[in-house]
Every structure is written in structure tokens, then in C-alpha cells.
């Protein structure tokens, strides 16, 4: 199954999310284009993570809809949405303990093979490696090559055989990002990928994000480090108390009095 990639990849239309009496996301509309980094910023509690949860299918919105090109996403499960090309990372990287770094990537690649959205066909997913056909052995070799290429792009080339338990926090973050890219997303949602990283690691992550953009991925980036966000984003959407208060280029948004108000107001509270 291939997704028709149009200039507008991800469309969020009038999405609201209510928890009891709290409107965490209030009638938010925007679109993310293929090959751009769309920054999503806003003070704490602005609804950024809830928005990500709605897009990725963890939560179903109270109102509104999300679609990928012509394909509606709202109402589908997380795994269905992921197999359509929308995947995400979490604020705290989650590893598969007990696997090596290379295996962690291979799991995502194998899942992609299994999902059937990538050749070879899904029946081959059941063939036993080693006892399988030549085609299967070729597929395995390709899998390992791709895993190593992804690790190299994330600056983890020499760590393929390390246990995930031995990674430093920043390395976990890079591995998680490489793992997300392994499923070849059309849209990648990154939830605070820079938090807790040192300046060098921040640069590594931003390099990966830019590479993903070049590869045609629409990257949605939630980040508290406003400086870094504005430096990498092509466009920015600003949320405050669940509402979209601004959208535009980084420089326009940074100069927007409403945005400045929201951030300063937040600091005074």
C-alpha cells in the first residue's frame, strides 16, 4: 500500500479534545507539507502532546478530523496509522531492553516488512530465515544493511553490537529517532527530542531532522527549546491554552505580540 504524497501531507481540521471540563485542544486547524519541519510550540499545558496523541491515534478527538493526503486517519488504531506512514517518538525514549542497538533497528525494519507495505510480500514474513528461500536471505542482508545505514546516519555506526542498556541518554534518543525513521514515515511526530541533551547531541538530532526533511518527510516538532526550534523549523504553529494563536515563518511568529504575550504571561504565572 502506498500513500499518495501531495504537497499537503498531513491535514488537521478543526480538532478539539475535551477531558471532562477541560478543553485541552480547541478547534485547531493546520497542515504539514511534505519535506518541511513544522514546529509546534506553546507554553506548558498548551495542548501540544495531546495534539500529537490525537494525530497518532492514541486518543480520538472529541471533534474534528486528521487525514493524510486523501486518507482519513481519525478513528484508526495507532498501528494502522503507523502503517499508513505516520509515526512518532515519545518525550522519554523507550528502548527494547535485552536487544543490541542493531537489533533495535532491525525490529522496526522487520515490523515494516511484516506490515506488508514494503516489498517483499507479507507471506515471506513467515518464512524461516536460513531455511528460507534465496529471496529471504537477500531480504535479510538488505535488512542488516539498512539497519547499519540508519545507525550511521544517526552517528551510532560503531555501536551496532552494544546492548541498549549500555547507552547514554543522548544515544538512546538518537537510537529512538533512527528507529522511527526505519519504518519510513511520511509524517514523523517528534515530542521534545532535544530535552536532556547536551549541545553536541542537540546538533546530532537536528542533523537527523534536517536529513529526514531532505528525504521528503513531514516532521512535526514539539520542543521547549524555542531557539533551536525556530532555527530548524520551516514554519511554526503556536498553541496557547489549546487554541492556535499563530502560524507562520519562525521570524514572523517570534515577532508576533500574541506569542510573546503567551510566553511571558506563562512565565509570570
Amino acid at each position: 500500500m502506498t500513500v499518495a504524497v501531495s504537497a499537503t501531507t498531513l491535514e488537521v481540521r478543526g480538532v478539539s479534545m475535551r477531558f471532562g471540563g477541560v478543553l485541552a485542544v480547541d478547534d485547531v486547524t493546520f497542515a504539514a507539507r511534505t519535506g518541511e519541519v513544522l514546529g509546534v510550540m506553546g507554553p506548558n499545558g498548551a495542548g501540544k502532546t495531546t495534539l500529537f496523541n490525537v494525530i497518532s491515534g492514541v486518543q480520538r478527538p472529541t471533534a474534528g478530523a486528521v487525514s493524510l493526503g486523501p486518507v482519513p486517519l481519525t478513528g484508526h488504531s495507532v498501528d494502522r496509522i503507523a502503517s499508513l506512514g505516520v509515526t512518532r517518538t515519545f518525550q522519554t525514549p523507550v528502548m527494547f531492553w535485552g536487544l543490541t542497538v542493531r537489533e533495535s533497528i532491525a525490529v522496526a525494519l522487520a515490523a515494516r516488512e511484516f506490515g506488508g507495505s514494503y516489498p517483499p510480500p507479507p507471506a515471506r514474513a513467515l518464512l524461516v530465515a536460513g531455511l528460507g528461500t534465496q529471496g529471504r536471505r537477500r531480504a535479510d542482508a538488505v535488512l542488516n544493511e539498512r539497519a547499519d545505514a540508519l545507525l550511521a546516519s544517526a552517528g551510532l555506526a560503531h555501536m551496532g553490537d552494544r546492548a541498549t542498556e549500555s547507552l547514554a541518554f543522548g544515544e538512546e534518543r538518537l537510537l529512538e529517532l533512527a528507529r522511527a525513521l526505519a519504518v519510513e514515515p511520511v509524517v514523523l511526530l517528534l515530542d521534545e527530542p532535544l530535552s536532556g541533551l547536551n549541545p553536541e547531541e542537540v546538533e546530532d538530532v537536528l542533523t537527523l531532522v534536517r536529513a529526514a526533511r531532505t528525504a521528503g518527510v513531514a516532521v512535526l516538532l514539539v520542543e521547549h527549546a524555542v531557539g533551536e526550534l525556530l532555527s530548524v523549523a520551516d514554519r511554526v504553529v503556536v498553541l496557547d491554552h489549546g487554541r492556535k494563536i499563530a502560524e507562520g515563518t519562525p521570524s514572523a511568529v517570534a515577532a508576533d505580540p500574541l506569542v510573546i504575550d503567551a510566553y511571558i504571561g506563562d512565565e509570570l504565572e
Partner: protein
Amino acid sequence: MIAQIWQYVLGGVVDGAIFALVAAGFVLIYQVTGIINFAQGEFVMVGGMTAASLAAAGMPPLGAAAIAVLVAACVGALSYLLAIRPARAATGVTLIFITLGLDVALRGLALFVWGTNPYSLPAFSGGNAVKLFGGALPPQAMWVLGTDLIVFAALYLFFARTYAGTAVRAAVANPPIASTFGIPLRTFAFASFVVAAAIGGLGGVVITPIPGVQYDAGLTYGLAGFVAAVLGGLDSLPGALLGGFVLGIVEHVAGGLLSPGWEQGVGFLILVLVLVLRPQGLLGRAVRRA
């Protein structure tokens, strides 16, 4: 005396082989869905009853066996679709009650279909008892042990060597992350019920020529399989294999030395001891999910 105990051990090996298959069903479903399916033993009964009644109606044994496994798999599929899936928002205790209800319902259905008469199935192959160091095993025991070998080898190859198996292991290790790879968790949950039921049904087919089968036979198999799974570790397929054989042998030896009535009592004593001394089981890990 030693010869006597050895004979009890051999008998226990045959029982243990079936307990191991039922335990494998418990482990598969628990791993993939987090549910302890107390209806697991009924799949054995359905397999045995279907094969026995078809054979009694004149069907050749191999055909009856194949259909019996298929029927058991369908019962597993329907159990998931009708009883588990609609309650997927429910939590642990509720789901345990649902599977207990499912167990009673399946037994009641069997009573309705087959009545209370015991059924028997001819052994798959004739010939003499197999002699082993002075003990003897019925020829059918070879079919039972061979089934264990094939089932566990197939499970090992699937999980260790296929992409699909890797995807299932990822889903087990970390469902939220696995779903962001596009791994279909619900499809796996459905498949775990179908496969667990087919394995149970197959066990029922191969064991039935030895003790026979009636509508309520699933209760014993289910409880023994549960104890075996806990003994081996609910998150470990090798544990299911080990737990099954250990339980079968200990039960049989204790039953032989004391009295047959003690068999199940000893089984439950083991369950209590495991839960107190080593709750994660012989081969299980203490923490299941990160």
C-alpha cells in the same frame, strides 16, 4: 520399587506432554494479550470430543483429527471475537472472570452437543508397548511426545527466525512502541487465541486414545496447564515445556505412591509453593514489561 516409580515417571511424561501443550496456550495468550485464559483446557476437550465423535461416526482417524484441530481453532477464534474483543477496555480481574465464564460456557455447550457419555478414540498406530529401561509406554505416547516436539519446534522457529515472530516479540516487549512501527496488536491478539486453541485441540486429539474424553475433561487439563504455566513462568514458552513435564511427573509419582486422588492436590501444592517461593516461575523473568 524403583521399577514401579520409573513406570509412574513414564506415565507422568505422557501427562506432562499434554500439560505442556496447554501451558503453551496459556503463555501465548498471556504474552500477547496479558490475559490469563482459564478456558484453555476446553480447547483440549473440544479437540478430543470432535475427533472421537467423528471417528465413532466412521470417519478415518486422520481426517477426524484434522477437522478436530480446525474446530478447536474456530472455537478459539469465536471465543476471542465474542467474549474477549468486546471487553477489550476491561482490566485484569474482569477479563479473568470473562475467561472463567467462557470456560463454563464451553463446557455447557459440550454437554449440550455430546451429552455426558465418555467417548474414546482408537490409537493412531497399533503395535506393542514401547519398552524403556524396564518401563512401558503405550504406542500412542509416541504420538503425544512427537506432537510436543513438533509444536514447540515450530513455535521456536516462528519466534526466533521469522519477521512475523520478531514483530510479535516486539509487540510483547512493548506494545505502545511496537504499534508506532505499524505492528497490528489486535490481529496478534486474535491470532494468539486461534493458535493457542489449535495447539490445545491438537493435544486433545493425540491424548484422547489413552484416557478417553468426556464433556468435562477440559477442567482438569485447564487447571493442570495453568499450574504448569505458572511453574515454568507465564512469560516463557520453554518454561511451559519444562513446567508441563515437571508437573506431570510429580503428580503421577505422588499419585502412584500415595493414591490417585492425591494427583491434583499435589499439583495445587506445587502452585502454592511456586507462588510463594518463586512467583516468576522456573524460567520466567521477574518483570514482564518495561
